[in-house]
C-alpha cells in the first residue's frame, strides 16, 4: 500500500493527540482543543478510526491495570512515520497554495 495516500483530518488529529497516552474521551477533547473547536470527533467515527489504526499498527492499546480503567491508546513508531510523511505532504500543499494565492 502506497504511502502517498493522504490521511483524513480525523486520523491525522487522532495520531497527533496520541503522542501522549489518552483514552477515548481524552482524544475527543484534545482534537477539539487543537482545532479550536473546528474538528469535533463523533464517538462512532472515533471508534472506527481507532480500530482501523490499530489494525494498521499506527497506534496501540496500552495494557490496562484494572478492568475498571478506561482503555488508553498511544502512537507507535509506524504511526509516527505516517504523521511525518503527512507533514511533508501538507507542507507541499501549503507551499504551492501560497505561491499561487500569496500569503493568506
Amino acid at each position: 500500500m502506497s504511502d502517498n495516500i493522504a490521511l483524513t483530518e480525523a486520523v491525522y488529529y487522532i495520531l497527533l493527540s496520541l503522542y501522549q497516552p489518552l483514552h477515548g474521551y481524552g482524544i475527543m477533547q484534545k482534537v477539539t482543543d487543537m482545532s479550536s473547536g473546528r474538528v469535533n470527533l463523533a464517538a462512532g467515527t472515533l471508534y472506527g478510526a481507532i480500530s482501523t489504526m490499530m489494525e494498521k499498527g499506527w497506534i496501540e492499546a496500552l495494557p490496562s491495570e484494572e478492568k475498571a480503567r478506561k482503555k488508553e491508546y498511544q502512537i507507535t513508531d509506524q504511526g509516527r512515520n505516517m504523521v511525518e510523511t503527512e507533514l511533508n505532504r501538507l507542507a507541499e500543499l501549503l507551499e504551492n497554495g501560497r505561491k499561487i494565492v500569496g500569503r493568506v
Partner: protein
Amino acid sequence: MIHTAYKVFSVGAFEKEEQWLNEMSAKGLQLIDVGICKYVFAEGQPREYVYRLELLEDLPSTAESMEYIQFLKEVGVEKVGSFFRWVYFRKKATEGSFDLYSDIDSRLKHYKRINLLCNWIIGMNLAAAIFNLFFFADSMKYFKMGILNTVNYSNLGISIFNIGVAAGIFLISSSIRRKLKEFQKEHEIRE
C-alpha cells in the same frame, strides 16, 4: 410515570424512527427500553437526552459489538436497548450535540449497511413470493388433473402479501438510497 407506545417502523424508515424518538424527548418523554414494535418512555425534562439509532455489523451480544458499546459508554453514550442488530443510544443534551458519525466516510458506511439489510429483506420477500406462486401454480395444475380437490389460494395470498411487503420496504427505503447517492458524491470531493 412510564409510558408505553406501540409503533411499527420499517427497516428503511430508520431516520423517521430516530426523529420520532427525539420528538418524544422534546415532549419530555425519554426512551428507556425497547421491545418488538414497543417503546417504553419515562417522564423527564424536555430534550433531556438526544437519541441515535445505529445498525451494528453484528448482534450486540458479540465481542466486537460489546467492545464498541463499552467504548461509547466511556465517552458518555448510553445504550438504552436493542432489537436485532439495531441499538438505541442516548446522550445527555447538556453535554453538547450528539451524533455518532462526524465525517462522510463513516456515515456512508453506516448507510451502506442499512441499505444492504433493506435489500436482503426485499430479496427474501421476493423469493418467498416466487416460491408461493409456484405452489399455487402447481396446485392449479393438480386440481385440473383431478389430483387435488381445491386450488391453494392461500399460497397466492401469501405471495401477494410478500410482494406487497417487498414493494413497501423498497418505497420506504428510497430515502436511504437517496442519501447514499448524496454521500457518495460528497465523498468524492471532501471528507
